[in-house]
């Protein structure tokens, strides 16, 4: 292993947001009353901005090091030491962590600033920022942790904050239950993650290396090859279990159902947690454990296929949604699917690249939709919008740029990252035409539904009622500046990863190469057939443009009627898609009602069997005690009373002897003496 550079400032990246969270969370109400919301904003935003500064410092320091020794370590103290296991509270920054930290603090910082404007009229302003900071803390713990256990702390922490912020307006039943849904579905995934961790630790302990630190697992990973558990390949099992955790956190089939409902939270929360950062935790985790995934081709196939299926599936649902945030939610699920597709074909760098660009444009889209909702006074239905570009130029242009980016039009960031993924899906040793075709179709659908959204929201005639129309306004500068910053990033962010085919050096991939050594090599296997890369590139741009044109024809020029498509095959496909494939209903029927049915069975069992046993036991006890009582009354008492009666009877007779007359006693004495004497004589 290479020497690691020990530093002291990584901890502050994590601890600063925690400080903000504690300040705002504990004393926020008092501060807000005494000093106003401005003080709360400063307490909340300053730590994240400072953390971003430190992250940049870490990035610069890493760049200065030789590529293979790029690892900063900040060890605080030993957390626990049990047997051979030593777990540290320690943070590490390698190229992968550095990218994640920059995204979390950078995009997160912008969203914090944006929130100042968006949440301005909120009464529990301090509570919102407290949770937002706590979330940032947990997310940074997750990406900077140097061992699985500390990572799991962050993993659970982001889930908790997600729950708290989805249900931020907890007086609304629907929103509160959306929070619970997110938490419960996430728990299913977390369970898999924990099992995976346990299994990994167990098997490593069995091999004499009880450790959970990533570097040590990485160093010992070769020992795991060939190990089996319960008849299955251990590495496959471990990675599959961890993938279940990633599915829950990153909203993949079948555990994606919580993410659309998570839109009940404030829009900046959707942007930060449910688009840019938390939902990418699963992708990050696979990237972090890439040495294990590379050892398990079966798992990679599952990840790739699950990702591609999710990408396509969620995109089709996105076609028919009318809620501005729901479209974005399904789009997020779909884009996460692309990231998993990349991970599954061993193109880890491409997945992380898309993670980063997606963070830029999806955060921008969400914040843009938040700006729209803000301007429309809470309206979220796109059918009652339209023509908004007249009132909201900043929002419109930033939203448009990000939409172009997500559609994958060159030279925006989305083009480079998505195309990289599609190319790797096609060319990688783990990929294939089927995976590529799924991603390719999804890309066309993405372009269509995103431009449908743009046209419905910003173009055409305004369909809002008169009163709302009068009050539509552009958002304040504190909200538009972050939008502009994110739009610029969405536009140019892709240039760090220009592929070799387009004359670039793909610096992003090179930057991550020390972390993804093996996968990097595998993904490069088929790089000599460059003409097919150009062909695929052309095809994906073509399908994106087609999607845009169809959307334009349907929703802008109205030369194509969307209704005629909706009526296809008697409207059945449309209804299925509009109702999100009835997955929620299916889960409701199977899991919710199944659980209810199970509880009813348990209740019946409880009432009839358990209660019967308890009552039966009581009756037997009553019976036995009744018999006992009889024995007591008649035998024991009879004995006691009988003895008393005998004594009484004898006493009654004997008392006659006691005459009280001394003369009588003396007579007895004399007669007795005489009697004895006579007896002696004869």
């Amino acid at each position, binding site marked *: 292993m290479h020497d690691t550079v020990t530093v002291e400032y990584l901890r502050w990246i994590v601890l600063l947001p925690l400080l903000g969270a504690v300040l705002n969370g504990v004393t926020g109400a008092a501060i807000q009353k005494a000093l106003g919301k401005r003080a709360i904003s400063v307490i909340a935003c300053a730590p994240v901005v400072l953390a971003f500064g430190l992250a940049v410092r870490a990035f610069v320091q890493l760049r200065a090091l030789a590529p293979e020794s790029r690892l900063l370590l900040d060890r605080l103290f030993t957390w626990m030491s049990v047997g051979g296991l030593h777990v540290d509270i320690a943070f590490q920054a390698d190229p992968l962590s550095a990218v994640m930290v920059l995204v979390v603090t950078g995009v997160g910082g912008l969203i914090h600033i944006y929130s100042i404007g968006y949440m301005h009229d909120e009464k529990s302003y301090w509570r919102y920022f407290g949770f937002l900071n706590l979330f940032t803390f947990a997310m940074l713990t997750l990406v900077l942790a140097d061992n699985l256990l500390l990572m799991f702390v962050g993993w659970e922490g982001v889930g908790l904050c997600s729950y708290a912020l989805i249900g931020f307006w907890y007086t609304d039943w629907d929103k509160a239950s959306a929070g619970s849904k997110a938490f419960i579905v996430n728990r299913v995934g977390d369970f898999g993650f924990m099992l995976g961790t346990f299994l990994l630790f167990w098997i490593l302990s069995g091999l004499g290396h009880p450790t959970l630190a990533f570097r040590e697992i990485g160093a010992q990973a070769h020992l795991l090859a060939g190990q089996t558990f319960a008849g299955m390949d251990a590495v496959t099992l471990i990675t599959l279990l961890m993938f279940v955790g990633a599915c829950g956190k990153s909203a993949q089939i079948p555990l994606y159902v919580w993410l659309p409902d998570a839109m009940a939270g404030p829009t900046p929360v959707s942007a930060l947690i449910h688009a840019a950062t938390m939902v990418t935790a699963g992708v990050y985790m696979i990237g972090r454990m890439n040495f294990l995934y590379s050892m398990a081709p079966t798992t990679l196939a599952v990840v790739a296929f699950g990702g591609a299926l999710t990408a396509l599936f969620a995109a089709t649902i996105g076609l028919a949604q009318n809620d501005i945030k729901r479209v974005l939610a399904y789009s997020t699920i779909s884009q996460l699917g692309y990231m998993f597709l990349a991970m599954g074909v061993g193109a880890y760098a491409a997945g992380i690249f898309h993670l980063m660009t997606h963070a830029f444009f999806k955060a921008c889209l969400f914040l843009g939709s938040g700006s729209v909702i803000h301007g429309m006074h809470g309206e979220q239905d796109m059918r009652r919008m339209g023509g908004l570009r007249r009132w909201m130029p900043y929002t419109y242009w930033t939203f448009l740029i990000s939409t172009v980016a997500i559609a994958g039009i060159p030279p925006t960031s989305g083009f480079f990252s998505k195309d990289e993924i599609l190319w790797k899906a096609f060319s990688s040793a783990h990929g294939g035409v089927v995976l590529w075709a799924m991603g390719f179709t999804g890309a066309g659908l993405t372009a269509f539904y995103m431009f449908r959204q743009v046209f419905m929201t910003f173009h055409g005639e305004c369909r809002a009622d008169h009163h709302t129309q009068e009050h539509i306004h552009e958002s304040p500068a504190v909200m538009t500046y972050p939008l502009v910053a994110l739009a610029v990033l969405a536009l140019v962010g892709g240039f760090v990863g220009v592929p070799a085919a387009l004359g670039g050096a793909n610096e992003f991939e090179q930057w991550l190469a020390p972390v993804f050594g093996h996968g990097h090599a595998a993904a490069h296997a088929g790089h000599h057939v460059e003409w097919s890369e150009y062909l695929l590139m052309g095809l994906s741009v073509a399908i994106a443009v087609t999607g845009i044109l169809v959307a334009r024809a349907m929703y802008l020029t109205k030369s194509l009627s969307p209704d005629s498509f909706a009526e296809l095959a008697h409207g059945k496909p449309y209804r299925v898609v509009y109702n999100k494939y009835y997955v929620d209903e299916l889960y409701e029927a199977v899991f919710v009602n199944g659980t209810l049915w199970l509880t009813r069975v348990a209740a019946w069992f409880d009432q009839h069997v358990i209660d019967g046993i308890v009552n039966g036991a009581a009756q037997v006890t009553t019976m036995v005690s009744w018999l006992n009582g009889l024995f007591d009354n008649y035998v024991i008492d009879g004995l006691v009373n009988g003895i008393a009666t005998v004594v009484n009877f004898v006493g009654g007779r*004997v008392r006659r*002897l*006691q*005459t*009280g*007359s*001394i*003369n009588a006693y*003396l007579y007895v004495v*004399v007669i007795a003496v005489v009697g004895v004497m006579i007896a002696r004589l004869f």
Partner: protein
Amino acid sequence: MIGLPHYLVVSLIVFLLGLYCVLTRRNAIGILMGVELILNSANINYIAFARYSSGGYDGQVFAVFVIMLAAAEATIGLAIVLGIYQTFQTIDVEATETLRG
């Protein structure tokens, strides 16, 4: 010549007188006096047997012992009688039968 049988007869007479006195008296003090007679008849026997046996002073010693015992007995007896009198205002033993069963 007066021999052992004479003493024993006197002793028997005194014993019988005492016994009669004890059995028939209703006066507590009378009973005590009867007891004294019985004790003294025993003393006569002791002395007589001591005189007419092979010699030695065992009998005399016992007689003196019995006299001493009789004195103690009379003391305690009289004290009891005094107590009875204070409680019942009488020393008639027929009247004091509180302990009759």
